[in-house]
């Protein structure tokens, strides 16, 4: 069986093939990072178009139909194709390293998850070319979505179905990885907080996504096969969709937020040079947020007419989430307390996060008050709330993580000055854009408004908001510039540039493809820090050098995803002409054939031999 791959200069073709077939979690992380980053820019450009349309009253920059497509695709893209994949990027890059594993539990499925997400994401956007993207809002409420003409919403349904399957697979993969693959000594209560949050977020994925899957199936049947789940004329009930969507949708926001909290926990502790204050309370709070997150979905439906009893119950349950979240905020503050706080770019984002997210959480509690939400709901107040938590929580975390883990992923450090410029542009732009929106909402501006009328006192606020959005754009461009400059010029860094605490910093940057030559022995929380304080350079190995088992690369994940992608078109266009059903058969044939091949052909992987590892160490 083969051994090491010679890592010399390779042709473009072979690099491409390598990425198309890779099952290495670190390369998959890069794939997620690039794809997620790409979709973030798309979603951001859509946001800029939205804001430009709203710069003045009765503007006619875009038409009503196009505007509706823009907001729908902005929301969908940002949540499903930008924020989630970027979080998956860091989970892939970091979690196996943090628990001292050589790879994830299912490398093949990991790759399948990525390709399903990517093809799903492309599918979602195909509508732009074929005459109209989805236009029923990212929440796709029936019957607006079921009666929306054209294929836009069909692309939404099938695109999300495909990428959702990818996410579910990814979630299970992380759960099993964390349960089964921890290095010797890495007990649950020694896991870094990012790993913990990844764990809970994955559990949320496992329980939340099936509801979306079903919802999407029902919508697909309604739109494409004439069923009547949401059609009042057939006895259907449109509120079922809302429940299914939010049973998924609310946990979804914590799927995004929890790993973000994990990222901040790592960064704040590293740059305060202190262990995380109240580690066990933090873990407890994480689990509690995950649990409570399932019991509050109807707070998105206060005005649906569920009656005062249901509204009250869900209002109070929702408010309860403020408690574990508060525990987190205060523990971060007390991690800083008494520390030796070094303020560089990752830390700047983390510090900016605390007041921003607190504000967003507070407006969250305000909208959770059902009788107040009658005013807030579906107004710009809600838009302000969720951008404060999503941008101020999740996007800030992603920027922070990018700066923090870049050296680990690529071996080079991003320029700190440029990083700070990005931060200040984005931070100021952000507050300019969204703070004023609280007031716009209360002053009577509903969301998803293509135009607002003159003389309603909304002009100034909207103009300010638009200005801010462009500052955010500028900040993002500086980041992109930083990335380019660093990749070209940046200096190589060692394994532990931040003097950090967790296991990922114990191995070279970027790590070798087998991660740990010898699995490390973990002796407590912040294992690397423990070793460092005791004067050792690195981790003590838990095993002698021996053969390492590695999985084989595979092209099948790509093929399977492509199969589903093709079948998707068949499903959509058969509503016009049954001939298109042939595409369903072709696509499903490809996908199922690839699946069969996978299960029939043994894939035993290969071994890196002990001798080679020893030899490499000497070089």
């Amino acid at each position, binding site marked *: 069986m083969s051994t090491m791959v010679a890592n010399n200069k390779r042709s473009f073709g072979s690099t491409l093939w390598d990425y198309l077939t890779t099952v290495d979690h670190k390369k998959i992380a890069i794939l997620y990072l690039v794809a997620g980053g790409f979709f973030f820019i798309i979603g951001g450009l859509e946001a800029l178009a939205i804001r430009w349309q709203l710069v003045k009253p009765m503007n006619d920059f875009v038409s009503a139909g196009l505007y509706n497509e823009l907001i729908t695709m902005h929301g969908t893209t940002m949540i499903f194709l930008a924020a989630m994949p970027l979080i998956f990027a860091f989970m892939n890059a970091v979690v196996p390293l943090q628990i001292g594993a050589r790879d994830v539990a299912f490398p093949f499925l990991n790759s399948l998850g990525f390709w399903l997400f990517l093809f799903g994401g492309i599918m979602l956007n195909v509508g732009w070319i074929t005459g109209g993207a989805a236009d029923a809002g990212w929440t796709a409420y029936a019957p607006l979505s079921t009666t929306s003409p054209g294929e836009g919403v069909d692309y939404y349904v099938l695109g999300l179905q495909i990428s959702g399957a990818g996410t579910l697979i990814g979630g299970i993969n992380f759960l099993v990885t964390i349960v089964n693959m921890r290095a010797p000594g890495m007990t649950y209560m020694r896991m870094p907080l990012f790993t913990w949050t990844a764990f809970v977020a994955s559990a949320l994925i496992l*329980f939340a996504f099936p509801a979306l899957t079903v919802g999407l199936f029902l919508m697909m049947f309604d739109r494409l096969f004439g069923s009547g789940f949401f059609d009042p004329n057939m006895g259907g*009930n449109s509120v079922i969709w809302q*429940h299914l969507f939010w049973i998924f949708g609310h946990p979804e926001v914590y799927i995004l937020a929890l790993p973000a909290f994990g990222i901040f926990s790592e960064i704040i502790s590293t740059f305060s040079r202190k262990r995380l204050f109240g580690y066990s309370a933090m873990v407890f709070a994480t689990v509690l947020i995950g649990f409570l997150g399932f019991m509050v979905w109807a707070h998105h439906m206060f005005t649906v007419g569920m009656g005062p009893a249901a509204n009250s119950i869900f209002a109070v349950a929702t408010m309860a989430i403020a408690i574990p979240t508060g525990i987190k905020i205060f523990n971060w503050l007390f991690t800083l307390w008494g520390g030796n706080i070094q303020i560089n770019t990752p830390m700047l984002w983390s510090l900016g996060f605390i007041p921003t997210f607190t504000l967003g959480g507070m407006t969250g509690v305000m909208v959770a008050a059902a009788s107040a939400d009658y005013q807030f709901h579906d107004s710009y107040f809600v838009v302000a709330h969720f951008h404060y938590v999503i941008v101020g929580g999740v996007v800030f975390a992603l920027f922070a993580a990018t700066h923090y883990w870049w050296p680990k992923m690529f071996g080079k450090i991003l320029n700190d000055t440029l990083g700070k410029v990005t931060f200040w542009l984005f931070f100021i732009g952000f507050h300019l854009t969204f703070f004023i929106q609280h007031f716009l909402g209360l002053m009577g501006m509903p969301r998803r408004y293509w135009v607002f009328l003159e003389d309603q006192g909304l002009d100034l606020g909207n103009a300010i908001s638009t200005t801010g959005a462009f500052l955010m754009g500028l900040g993002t461009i500086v980041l992109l510039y930083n990335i380019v400059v660093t990749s070209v010029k940046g200096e190589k860094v060692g394994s532990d540039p931040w003097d950090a605490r967790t296991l990922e910093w114990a191995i070279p940057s970027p790590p070798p493809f087998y991660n740990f030559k010898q699995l490390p022995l973990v002796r407590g929380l912040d294992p690397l820090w423990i070793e460092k304080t005791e004067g050792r350079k690195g981790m003590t190995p838990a095993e002698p050098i021996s053969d390492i088992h590695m999985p084989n690369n595979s092209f099948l994940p790509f093929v399977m995803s492509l199969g589903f992608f093709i079948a998707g078109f068949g499903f959509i266009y058969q509503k016009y002409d049954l001939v298109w059903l042939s595409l369903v058969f072709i696509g499903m044939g490809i996908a199922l054939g690839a699946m069969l091949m996978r299960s029939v052909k043994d894939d035993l992987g290969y071994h890196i031999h002990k001798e080679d590892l020893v030899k490499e160490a000497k070089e």
Partner: protein
Amino acid sequence: MAEKTSLHPAQLDYEKQKRKEEMKQQVITFALMIIFTIIAFSMVIAELNKLFVIPVIFVLAAVQVGFQLYYFMHMSHKGHEMPAFMLYGGVFAAFLTILALAALVWW
């Protein structure tokens, strides 16, 4: 990474014996499941009072499912803590979902 330690023949016999015992239990479980099913069906066919029948058939179903999980799927064995945890997580989410959607009817 196989556990290459092969078992002592005596131990192997013991294990085999234990499995055999267990297999007997499985058959009894199965018999119970069949009986429960028959009870459920006959109660419905006998057209007893609805308010009585519905809860009873639900309980019968739940017990049957418990049998499946704990005996047929071995959730009672050790090494199933995580599976049980995640399954009950699913049951919890499932319960809320059904409650919400079923409540729509009376709302």
